[in-house]
């Protein structure tokens, strides 16, 4: 489970995450939504120990980030969008590296690499360098890396970007099954359709502040809207003036062409 209390991150004078608190119990999938620059990725980075919080407490899978960061990292699987990789390694070498870093048994690493590669239709690519992979293949590799050590908590930051429909379907059902086995999933995304079907509970962050934390049904009642996209637009105030902005965009494009 994840427990966050009064979490704050400041970069100089700007506040990326502003005093947020929430809890995600074991076996739950929670959608973490917000517009660009809202503070979603920063929150996840703090949860995984990549960024040090300015204030607040983090506890993941019973491990305190301030005192037991190492144990916390062992329990977390993290997937981020367009992550940089050591591109001269092959798929198998990368997974071997990850397995070793997360203390997976050597024989299990080999077994899991073969099985994951088959599962994600990448068996022919195991000896191929990452530099030749498409974005979708890289994303699959990142997902495999995050799952390799059987973590208790999964932190997914836009995990389905660039993935094909089959893989997205597989991932959705797999995450639901993993949640049933007691794994906690914090799912950060812009794709509201996926969040709507996958996550029974939604948290919305805007300008660093947590502005909503409820089930989809509760959010529908709260906003009198039926679709998550409308709920999101209303809560984050991103829908206002969209018609005018569209007109402006067309005018700018056409003016640019004249010039």
């Amino acid at each position, binding site marked *: 489970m994840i427990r966050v209390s009064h979490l704050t991150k400041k970069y100089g004078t700007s506040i990326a995450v502003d005093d947020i608190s929430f809890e995600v119990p074991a076996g739950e999938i929670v959608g973490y939504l917000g517009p660009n620059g809202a503070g979603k990725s920063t929150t996840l980075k703090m949860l*995984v*120990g*990549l960024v*040090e919080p300015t204030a607040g407490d983090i506890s993941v899978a019973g491990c305190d980030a301030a005192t037991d*960061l*190492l*144990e*916390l*990292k*062992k329990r*977390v699987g*993290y997937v*981020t969008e367009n*992550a*940089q*990789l*050591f*591109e*001269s*390694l092959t798929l*198998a*070498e990368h997974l*071997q*590296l*990850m397995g*070793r*870093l*997360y*203390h997976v048994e050597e024989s299990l690493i*080999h077994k899991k*690499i*073969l099985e994951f*590669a088959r599962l994600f239709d990448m*068996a*022919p*690519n*195991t*000896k*191929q*360098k990452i*530099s*030749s992979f498409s974005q979708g293949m890289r994303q699959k590799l990142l997902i495999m890396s995050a799952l390799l050590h059987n973590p208790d908590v999964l932190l997914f930051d836009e995990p389905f970007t660039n993935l094909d429909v089959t893989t997205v379907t597989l991932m959705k059902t797999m995450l639901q099954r993993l949640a049933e086995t007691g794994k906690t999933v914090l799912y950060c995304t812009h794709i509201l359709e996926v969040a709507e079907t996958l996550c029974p509970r939604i948290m919305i962050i805007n300008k660093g502040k947590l502005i909503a934390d409820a089930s989809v049904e509760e959010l529908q009642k709260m906003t009198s809207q039926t679709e998550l996209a409308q709920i999101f637009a209303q809560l984050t105030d991103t829908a206002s003036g969209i018609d005018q902005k569209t007109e402006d965009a067309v005018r700018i494009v056409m003016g640019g062409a004249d010039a």
Partner: protein
Amino acid sequence: MLDKIAQIYGVDPAHFKQLLKLDKTVASRAKGDKNGSAIFSYGLVCCFHVILGLPVAFILLFRLLDAPVDGFDYAIIGLSYTMVMTAFLSYSRLEFILNPIDYLVLAHTPVSSRTFFLAKLTRLLASTAVMSSCLNLLPAITGYWTAERSPLFPVVYLGVSVIAGFFSVGVLTVITGYVTKLHTYEKLRSISKYSELAFPVLFPFVYLVVPRLLPELKIVSDKLIPFLTAFYLLPNSWFAGMVAFGLGDVHYRFLILTAVAILAMLLLVVGPLRSVAKGYSRFLTSLLESRKTQKPQLKLRASLVSRVFERRETRVGADLVFAYLRRDRRTQLRVFSAVGTPVIFLAILFQDNPVWDWIGKPFTIWLALGVSAIFFFGCSTMVSSFLGQIRYSDHWKAKWIFQCAPLTVPHALWRGTLATTLIYIVLPYTILLLTLATIFWRGLWGMFYLLPGLSALLVYAVCYPKPNSGLPLSEEFIQSGWNLEQLWLLIRFICTQLIFGVVLAIQFVMYKLGVGLYIGCYAFIVIGGILIFIHNFNKKQLGEVHV
């Protein structure tokens, strides 16, 4: 004026200016990010090159004190050094042209490949001009004391050395460009890769070793005077002739040499360089091709080094570095082209007859100390080059993987790198020199000579400073300059050589005081060094940190 030049070469002046501006901004921001100030970083680069010019300035000054030397002879020695060093130092910068990382960003824009090439070449020549000027500043000043005592000498010499630097870089670009063209052919790709690695080692041979052979040739050629003209076939003498001509010596010899230098420059620009530029678009296209090699069977192979270690972090470090050394062309270029430097110095050293005289003799204290010194200098240079470069990678942003991972001992990753260095640098070098030493001196004498150097080397390697991150391949390589950390590593390297010099001096004093004392001192150095190495290599550094 820039517009006119650009138009002559058929490039788009607006694009050309934009690309130059972009390069400048990116370079200065990268330098600024590393050191806090771009101007400070440029200052460091200049200081470093001025320091590099110091040895040749000393050599030339000693030669002038020994006997009067005329401007032409002085310029030959100085320019030979300059051209070699310029070629060496420019080699990593050829990546501007031959491996432009920003091309992938600009590939879809309507910038012509010729414009792109000219912008990159301009930047390379600009940095060459600065580098050559700094490198030759001290030799130019000491050149005032040549036979002519011309106050014009520093100015003329400095000007010609910049032109000679351009020539070196031009030749280097052309040859490497032709070799790189082979990249479009799959089967020849690996050959071209190794040619590129071998090139920085071969290049100095042409300029440095061949002129050193010429005095030997001269004895023979006294009877065959025309044969001496072979000397003038080398570009360093063309530019030396230009210096003499610039100083006002209008002897026909210098006139011809100056004309040859100018002609060579022109031919280089309108011939091979233009040809490389014309084929540049095809080359750039090949950069965008994905190179897929399918090997369906999965067989994970751990490197030799990694199997030795139980700690997983060490194995990860060793395997990662090993994979990059095996596959990543940029890593290979940076690491191995730097490793080639001591090979050249050793080759030059063995050109001198006194060294061969030493080798022919049975045990003398000078031989024992000399072999230790050569071993230590050669291998410590390689170790420095290797460890100094392996911290950089184009994929340095992937270090987030280590930051996320539960590393119990983060520095164990660097220990894996160190182990790779010992296996791939120290071990082969030791075996090679031990074999040679055994052949020269029979039995165990060779080993006796080498052991103090090896022991000191192990201490040097294990105490080599870790990068700030403590991780291999996790720092950004700034193509266009030096940072404070690199300068610190250079100073540290020089100090280490001095310290080892003191160790040798102590051995010498002990030998003079008595053989027993010498043997005791010898044993202390060898055993002490090995113990320090073992202690430091196994030292535990526990505790989790935000790496």
